[in-house]
């Protein structure tokens, strides 16, 4: 629900109240990019009045007189009262606000200095600010808090912290035994927990899901027919393994983009190339094969750009990018890396992989205006011209393997920053760059640029180890802060960019379902293997053409949510209701919405109802036969903490009244027992039915739906 903040009110993370001097990257470029560059930016074809504002040397020729706004045409135009002369023209939907005009004025007064776009500059190796903190992350965060006169929040309560780190690292809540460590709580105990979780196979399951979002992973083709990809799961399992074995991110990258081009590739390296086999594919009879091929390559280019570089290269498919230095020629030079790539079914391991065409290779050319039938100038494979070139001379021309190695070269300004930011966003709620899929000029600048660069450096210095990086982050005091609301920061930092507390995060769809299964004891923990089909009402799956939804047998249906089959035409509603992605495009950041349909799902979806039944059964069996004890156990199983007195009191009232209602309704009310009915003595059935209602209330509480 935080998603719909009216833009006019949005205070960007990079510009907080205390900052005085206008800074081009932070304050001016985003406005120019959003409201001026379409006609006065890099795209020559669309440039008006021969004026470009993206290059200082050009801008100061006529439009800007540094130090003197009143003599600057730019200032005159943006404040003009005549509709023929005012800029942007009244017909443009993108008008300047008063605050923006004032920023321009101040900027010109201060000398109208430009800066290179930060994300294309080499990664710096900033010194860690002086601090008492052991963890450098905290030194950076605290230094910035100090300049705003703020102190970090106190450490989270140990139970909340344990729960947080379990959910963040494994996607599963702790079981009561995991909290035994509380009796001996210290930094060392916490570190031991972190180490254990990082070594747990559940870690790979959780973090694979983040990557699968970006890999637009699905078990079907999409489009008409939505044909099954029965072996797509081999790629998914490869990702899980890659996280569990901490495959270094550089190799992780190379194998996915060009595993087939490695010398004598191993099965796993071929399977990794499934990354680019995940795209939707139109196999409809009568489809234009060349057009489908073109669209497929465009998807690969765009996805590579977004996932590894945080760039919206797709904008340059039809025309030179409006705000980033990416030309249409750049786009098709990048496209050329994939133009002679074909899909292969690997007979040995059944995985769908990539392979390079050897004979009759295509000459790549610019597709004018993004039209696959309009041939422009020929191009050869090349990296984006605004970024460092590929180093060694590559003859006759570079291939996908060179592309992959270029991405992970230490000189690349984006790859490490983007990866670090993505991981940060999963642990702190938002990225240091709040537009994780746009590191270009229209994206937000980092809230803590030095920290971002320090982390990016540290990541590479430690052999691109994600486990190392994640441990560094979760060990920080910044991560371990309380997430409780702080009245003293809402005025200054409403979006919590400074991280004067942790963010409270609505759990991802998969974690919600998995948590319910876990606390009730229903969860089946088998890792990997073919995807399964949970129960689904017929008329929900029956709208598509691939309407054969055979529910998986036995306790398969209680497996973790990342194994639920992803059919592009029948997305599993319990997950999509909670913002799981549609596998159409790389999803770098999920929404976190809050809707009535979510309430209905949590209350009535069969998986949550069964979880409530199983949880109630546990309380009946495992707790002493007193209402208060049972309620306490239910609460503890659900939240890893005992209820506060007022909570227990309220639950007791509900229990008493509900029991009365169950008795009154008799056999009808006992239907709620469902499958557990036969496991319960007749004398206990009224109590069990009552406890199910209690369990259902607990699993719908805000505390269950969020990670503190």
């Amino acid at each position, binding site marked *: 629900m935080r998603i719909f903040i009216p833009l006019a009110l949005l205070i960007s993370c990079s510009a907080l109240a205390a900052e005085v001097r206008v800074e081009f990257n932070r304050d001016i470029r985003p406005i120019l990019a959003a409201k001026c560059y379409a006609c006065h930016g890099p795209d020559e074809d669309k440039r008006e009045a021969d004026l470009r504002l993206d290059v200082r040397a050009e801008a100061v020729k006529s439009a800007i007189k540094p130090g003197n706004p009143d003599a600057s045409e730019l200032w005159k135009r943006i404040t003009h009262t005549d509709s023929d002369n005012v800029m942007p023209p009244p017909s443009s939907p993108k008008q300047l606000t008063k605050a923006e005009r004032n920023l321009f004025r101040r900027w010109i007064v201060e000398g109208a200095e430009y800066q290179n776009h930060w994300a294309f500059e080499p990664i710096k190796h900033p010194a860690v600010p002086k601090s008492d903190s052991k963890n450098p992350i905290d030194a950076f965060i605290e230094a910035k808090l100090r300049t705003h006169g703020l102190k970090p929040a106190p450490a989270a309560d140990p139970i909340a912290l344990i729960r947080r780190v379990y959910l963040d690292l494994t996607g599963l809540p702790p079981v009561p035994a995991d909290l035994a460590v509380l009796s001996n709580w210290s930094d060392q105990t916490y570190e031991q927990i972190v180490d254990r979780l990082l070594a747990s196979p559940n870690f790979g399951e959780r973090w694979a899901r983040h990557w699968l979002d970006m890999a637009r992973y699905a078990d079907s083709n999409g489009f*008409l027919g939505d044909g099954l990809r029965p072996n797509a799961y081999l790629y998914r399992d490869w990702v899980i393994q890659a996280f569990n074995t901490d495959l270094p991110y550089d190799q992780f990258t190379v194998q996915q983009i060009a595993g087939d081009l490695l010398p004598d590739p191993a099965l796993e390296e071929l399977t990794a190339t499934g990354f680019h086999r995940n795209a939707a594919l139109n196999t409809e009879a009568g489809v234009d094969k060349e057009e489908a091929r073109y669209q497929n390559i465009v998807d690969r280019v765009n996805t590579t750009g977004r996932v590894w570089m945080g760039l919206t290269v797709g904008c340059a498919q039809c025309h030179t990018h409006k705000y980033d230095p990416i030309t249409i020629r750049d786009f098709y030079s990048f496209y050329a890396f994939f133009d002679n790539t074909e899909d292969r079914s690997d007979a040995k391991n059944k995985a769908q992989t990539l392979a390079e065409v050897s004979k009759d290779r295509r000459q790549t050319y610019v597709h004018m205006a993004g039209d696959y039938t309009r041939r422009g100038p020929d191009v050869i494979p090349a990296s984006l011209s605004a970024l460092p070139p590929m180093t060694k001379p590559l003859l006759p021309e570079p291939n996908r393997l060179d592309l992959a190695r270029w991405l992970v070269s230490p000189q690349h300004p984006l790859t490490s920053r983007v990866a670090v930011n993505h991981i940060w966003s999963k642990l702190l709620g938002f990225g240091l760059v709040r537009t994780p899929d746009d590191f270009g000029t229209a994206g937000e600048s980092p809230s803590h640029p030095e920290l971002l660069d320090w982390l990016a450096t540290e990541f590479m210095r430690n052999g691109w180890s994600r486990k190392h990086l994640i441990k560094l982050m979760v060990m920080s005091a910044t991560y371990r802060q309380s997430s409780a609301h702080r009245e003293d920061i809402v005025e200054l930092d409403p979006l919590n960019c400074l991280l004067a507390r942790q963010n409270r995060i609505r759990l991802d769809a998969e974690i919600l379902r998995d948590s319910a299964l876990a606390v009730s004891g229903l969860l089946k923990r088998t890792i990997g293997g073919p995807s399964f089909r949970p129960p689904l009402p017929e008329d929900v799956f029956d709208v598509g053409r691939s309407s054969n939804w055979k529910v998986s047998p036995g306790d398969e249906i209680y497996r973790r949510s990342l194994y639920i089959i992803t059919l592009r035409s029948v997305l599993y509603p319990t997950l999509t*209701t909670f*913002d799981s992605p549609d596998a159409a495009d790389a999803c770098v950041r999920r929404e976190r919405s*809050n*809707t009535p349909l979510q*309430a209905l799902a949590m209350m009535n979806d069969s998986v949550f109802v069964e979880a409530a039944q199983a949880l109630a059964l546990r309380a009946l069996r495992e707790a002493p036969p007193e209402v208060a004890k049972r309620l306490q156990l239910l609460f503890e199983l659900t939240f890893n903490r005992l209820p506060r007195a007022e909570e227990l009191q309220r639950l007791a009232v509900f229990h008493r009244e509900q029991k009365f209602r169950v008795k009154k309704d008799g056999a009808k009310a006992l239907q*709620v027992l469902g499958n557990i009915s036969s496991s319960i003595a007749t004398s206990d059935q009224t109590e069990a039915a009552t406890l199910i209602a209690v369990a259902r209330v607990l699993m719908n509480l805000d505390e269950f739906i*969020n990670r503190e």
Partner: protein
Amino acid sequence: MSPQELITQTRRDFLATSSCGLGTLALASLLRQDGLLAAEADIPANPLGTRMSHFAPKAERCIFIFLEGGPSQMDLFDPKPLLNKYDGQPLPDSIVGDAKFAFLQKDSATVMGTSRVFKKHGQCGMEISDLLPQIATCADDIALVRSMHTTQFNHLPGQLMLNCGESRLGRPSVGSWVTYGLGNLSQELPSYVVMVSKGRGLPGGSSTWSSGFLPSSYSGVMFRNGASPVLNLSNPDGITPDMQSASIRALNDLNRLQHKHIGDPEIAARINSYELAFRMQSAAPDLVDLSGESQATLDAYGVNRIEPPIKSNLGGIGNYQTFSRQCLNARRMVERGVRFVNIIHASWDHHSNLDPQLAHNSQMVDQPIAALLKDLKQRGLLDTTLVVWGSEFGRTALGENRKGFKKVTGRDHHPAAFSLWMAGGGIKGGQVHGETDDFAWNVTRDPVSIHDFHATILNLFGLNHNKLTYRFQGLDFRLTGVNPAKVVKSLIA
């Protein structure tokens, strides 16, 4: 403090008002008064709160009837007397040009005549085929566009184009855009509802009403046939409405206690969602309970009519009563504040057996759609309710001679020219817009692209299609795409 006092106290402490159907924005302002929220930027704005349109709207609601597969325009809406004259003869190259086909063998294909009879209807004299006699009686309310054209000649890309403005997956549908632009009028029903009757199956499935890159709150909510129309609407067996009500009270009270402890304003929004869900649990079944409708109304829509026999049908058998019920439900929805309704039937993809199957489908939809238009009009709702009949493309004048077909009994896909119509919601009825050549092959006057059509729908809702944007992948996306689209002004009253 007794438990009862405790409950009362915490409820008062928190917000006695959160149950009164206030939008979260109102809730947020209350929170701010209470000092729970200090900065405007932190308002957890309700994505479905009602919002102002760009200018005064003519339409407040839309019922978009999507007849999947490409109904044959020259057998329904666009009379072409020359078809029968040229029956069995090839079309001149000058007309066919370099058109692509899904299945048709271009070199040997010949014109297929039509057995349909077209007559003039209404004061406007609109020509409509004998397959739609009842819709024809509404001619004076209908604006028939004969000059539609699209860029896609395959089903799913074409359907995504029609429903979402782009031929690829992952884009928001028209209903999602409208909901995003204007929010929800109802406090107890979803803003955007979809009803599907299945024959062959809908190629895109739920991507047809997807919110794409918009937040999922703007996605269409499928109303299923039967008494429990929304997924997960019914409580588990054994949980009565009383128990449910008590459960919601308990969980909201516990949430309020938690709010006292950690102070996250989002908790208020969560409480609101549960209250809305609870109201939906009674409102949605009430909506589909037709027992309060008069026999005359039920009969007008054909809710209990008997389907004529047919051996096989691509559009399915047994959908007559369902479709009638869906049209009646659509009226009941718009009465209750649902903003956008999709009624979808698949399929009208008549590559073969066109005559009997098109007749069967037409008879299925004719009576209920006409009844819907008349019912809306009689209740004074048609003026503000836009009704659309549309599909992803039309069909060819050439008969389909696909390899393996023994006889030519159908037509192939045709994107270059086809028909759709709109009525109500600010549409100027009783007019035909645009023209095609003698074989309904090319548009010869007033072409309307899918984006023009979308721009027009948004305009009726008071929305400027150039201004209704959403930032995704670094671009400000709009329903009508990159190239200029135009509002078809002459369609608007």
